[in-house]
């Protein structure tokens, strides 16, 4: 059995300075993302400014996450097997985001009758008898809850 294990108890001790530097980098990145969020960034190509803003925030977040994973969690120094399993969760997560493929390729909009009332009360809590005149032609005024 021992043949297959890379003996990790000859462990790698990372100097404090590395950790401290990482922490400083992380805090700086955090400040950078707050700072970047205070601007309305311009649109780039097909992406609207909103998307660009969000992309910047997420790229910084990913950078921070990578720092934490690589340095703090020590993946940089761990076995290939551990690296594979680190990746597996995130890869599967990307597959999960494949669900978005459905929402981007179909009409996804709720009909009016289904939204809760403008006064904020949930439609299911309104009395049955109440008949609300149609808001527009497409309104079905469906009763939500008996």
């Amino acid at each position, binding site marked *: 059995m021992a043949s297959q294990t890379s003996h990790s108890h000859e*462990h790698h001790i990372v100097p404090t300075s590395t950790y401290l530097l990482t922490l400083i980098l*992380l805090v700086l990145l955090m400040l950078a993302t707050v700072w970047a969020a205070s601007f309305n960034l311009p649109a780039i190509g097909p992406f609207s400014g909103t998307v660009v803003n969000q992309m910047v925030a997420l790229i910084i977040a990913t950078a921070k996450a990578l720092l934490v994973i690589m340095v703090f*969690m020590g993946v940089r120094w761990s076995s290939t097997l551990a690296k594979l399993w680190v990746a597996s969760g995130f890869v599967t997560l990307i597959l999960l985001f494949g669900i978005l493929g459905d929402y981007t390729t179909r009409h996804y909009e709720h009909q009016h009758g289904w939204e809760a009332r403008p006064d904020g009360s949930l439609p299911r809590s309104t009395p049955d008898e109440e008949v609300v005149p149609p808001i527009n032609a497409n309104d079905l005024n469906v009763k939500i809850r008996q």
Partner: protein
Amino acid sequence: MSAITNTSDHGHDSALHHQFEDIGQQNDSYIVGMWVFLSTEVMFFGALFFIYTLYRWNYQLDFYIAHEHLDVKLGAINTSVLLFSSFTMVMAVQSAQLKRRLHVIGYLLTTIVCACTFLVIKYFEYSSKIADHLYPGAGFATDAHAAFGAHAFEAGKLAVNMNHAQLFYALYFGMTGLHAVHIIAGILVILALIRLWVIRAKSVTLDYIPTEMVGLYWHFVDLVWIFLFPLFYLMPKPH
């Protein structure tokens, strides 16, 4: 291979469990096991992040206005606190590698203090939401002006759909709440670890791996917050 160990011989090392051949194999197993567990956690939070992404993408303006009630400063402070706690945690692991017992205990205690600070700040954030009736469910705020002030209006007209705002707060409480549950679990685990270090239990003092495992968990909790922060607190206005 070389190592043919008799089963009756559990080795000289009392930290070694009977099913393993040697401590290296055991350590490797623990670390890999922890990572496999963390990949489960990635999917656990991942599904929530997906739901958030979908609804956010559909109701951008409503989510933006709803998010204006969150306090970026408190969020940033909380992020720093968690980042710092990650640092103290990693220092605890390093001290464990160097077998500096008191350092380990000190760093772990600092981590717990950070975690508690985080929770206290979270408590104040939650109470300000609850005070403004921004908790999801039947009692959700109906008056957009009272809840979001001028943000709720654009060109004199109501711009926010309170239903979608409620969805935002449902996800906010759901995701940060689940994260807080992980923090609380982390505090308990770290407390248990501190106790083991205090009583000089061989299971932790002989090898740094148990400390490292708790560390991995704690960094993961930090990791989740690293994404929660920009997604909830730093929304760009749709433009």
